[in-house]
């Protein structure tokens, strides 16, 4: 419902030549209670959906992270295996027992060159 009222501005009050001139003012339309509930519910639902969507997205990252961490662990284990193998192959015991070492002759110091 539109309510109408006539009023005279201060300016018009001062302007005597503008008598009987009408002006219209519209009052603010307010929402009904049902509409408010519906809108709040919709907003809540939207925010809820956004939250769930973000949560799912974060969980998706968690799974990716977990997979990467597993891969890192796996690679580290392989790196450890290789480091151990390298250490075994380069150990002095292994070097001494190698065929190369077996073919070598004992070195002797013949002389030192004066500096």
């Amino acid at each position, binding site marked *: 419902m539109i309510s109408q009222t006539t009023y005279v501005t201060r300016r018009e009050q001062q302007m005597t030549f503008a008598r009987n001139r009408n002006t219209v003012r519209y009052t603010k339309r307010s929402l009904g209670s049902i509409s408010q509930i519906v809108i709040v519910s919709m907003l809540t639902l939207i925010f809820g959906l956004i939250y769930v969507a973000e*949560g799912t997205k974060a969980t998706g990252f968690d799974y990716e992270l977990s997979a990467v961490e597993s891969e890192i662990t796996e690679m580290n284990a392989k790196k450890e295996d290789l480091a*151990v193998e390298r250490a075994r192959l380069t150990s002095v*015991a292994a070097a*001494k027992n190698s065929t190369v070492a077996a073919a070598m002759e004992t070195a002797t*110091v013949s002389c030192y060159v004066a500096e």
Partner: protein
Amino acid sequence: MSQSKILSRINILKYIVLAALEIIIVRLFFIQIIEHADWVAKADEQHTILETITPKRGEIYMMDKGEPVPIVLNQTMYQVVIDPTVTRKEDIEKVVNDYVKDYTVVNLDEVYSQENLRYAIVAKDVPREKAEEIADSGTPAIWLKKTNRRVYPEGELASGLLGFMNNDGVGQYGVEGSLNDMLAGKEGLLKTTADINKVALSIGNDNVRVQAEDGKNVVLSIDRGLERGIEEIAAATINETTADHASVLVMNPNNGEVLAMANLPSYDPNNYTEVTDASVYVNQITDVPYEPASICKNFAFSAAINEGLMTGDTTYFNQGYEIVDGWKIENAEQRSILYGTLTMRDALYWSLNTGSIYALKLLGGDPNSINQTGREKLYDYYHNKLRLGQITGIELIEAEGYIPDPNEGWGRDSTYANMTFGQNLGITMIQTATAFSAVINGGVYHTPYVVKGFYENGELIEEKQVEDVNDQVLSEETSTMMREMLINNRSYRKRAGVDRDGYAIGGKSGTAQVVRDGAYDDTMSELVGSYIGFVGPEGELPKYVIMVKMWGEGQSIDSGQAMTMFDSLSNYLIDYLKIKPGAA
């Protein structure tokens, strides 16, 4: 049906519904208020992971040609675990036969004969490749549990120094034991919401993730090649004698850096549980005080020289024995040519007990008797200046040993007379070698150390873990005089061609009697042989100190055998470390 009957039934239904509601409300009250904590715990159990994050144990390195090389590493291994009430016997038998026969630790028949057994480790130390094959086989109800195994790729090398890590992940003996906290690092904590597969999720408000702090990679000052060579020489020497134990220490006398530390017999730390004699775990060099015998004459002589009371040319009358507190103390060397007036240089050369007792008398200001002043001065040099009978501070498990109080106890004079030639006291090899280093390096006591630094991001970060006392305990003149006398001790080794020209090699032997039933065994049926000496280019300060100890249960090992080992070791050092001869 009449209207009143319908109303009555509706009322009954109403009461039933109300009663049901009340029951639900009461139950909810119990669940949410009274049993709140229990239900929260149950819920947490289902969707929360709470576990410690195990840090990586630090590796141990030795030096080789100036570069750190790993000698103790970690390796991820697996255990094959079953639940006998769930796992079918034929399944696990197939897995064992196909993949882990060599790693099986139980008898499956025995496992399956036990009622209500829900957990059994079938195989241990399974390598990753095998574990992957088992996982790929898709055998149901078989679990693979990761474990960390310590690997010692050099086998028995320096086992007495390194120690081992036990099944609980705790370092035992040696560096593993003494630096356990540093190597172990700090555990982390993970508490987070998880899904049904225990995958950690970031949702939730109470998630905690404290990262683990990995252990430090420790670099030892030990030279790997030198250690190996010395262990081989020591093993070869004891094989030629009746000794069954030997310990060898090589250190730099000018800064306290330990370069080799060998204990024989050794053991394989990879299989430490197979050791039958637990004494092989003990580092004899730092953890066992003993009587190094005549090696201590170096310290008694140094004290008297440092006090300005004698030189190598000072003379005394040797009658072959001394009577102290009613005890007859004899020289081991009783050649007739030695009776009469001798120099202190000769006394050290022939290792005469009467000579070192004379040094003690001189310390007391009375050449004819031992007195309180002499005892107190000797104690001051032994205990306070040369730090014998005190832990040195090296980063290893150490025994303190003991030096008797100069003014307490019975037979103090005879006790102190014995102390001049290394009896009636208890000191470790590391204490002895460190004190000896001060005697020959110009008089400065350096704290010994075995940790050179840490290995981080492929680089050696040098960082000593001990504070060097760097204490001038003897004068340079005293040190020079002692070096000259110790080189003189080996003059016959030079004449024999054992010691090469161009090198200053000095040394002193020590043969210790063992104590049986509270007294020294004069039958000499069991003796401990020791030798300490230095090597360096002629005309320069010694670069290396070598100490050898040899013994065997019920065996008479004299210092001559220890000296033979020293001969081999000193020449090996010259070759291995390429020590150039000095100008004569």
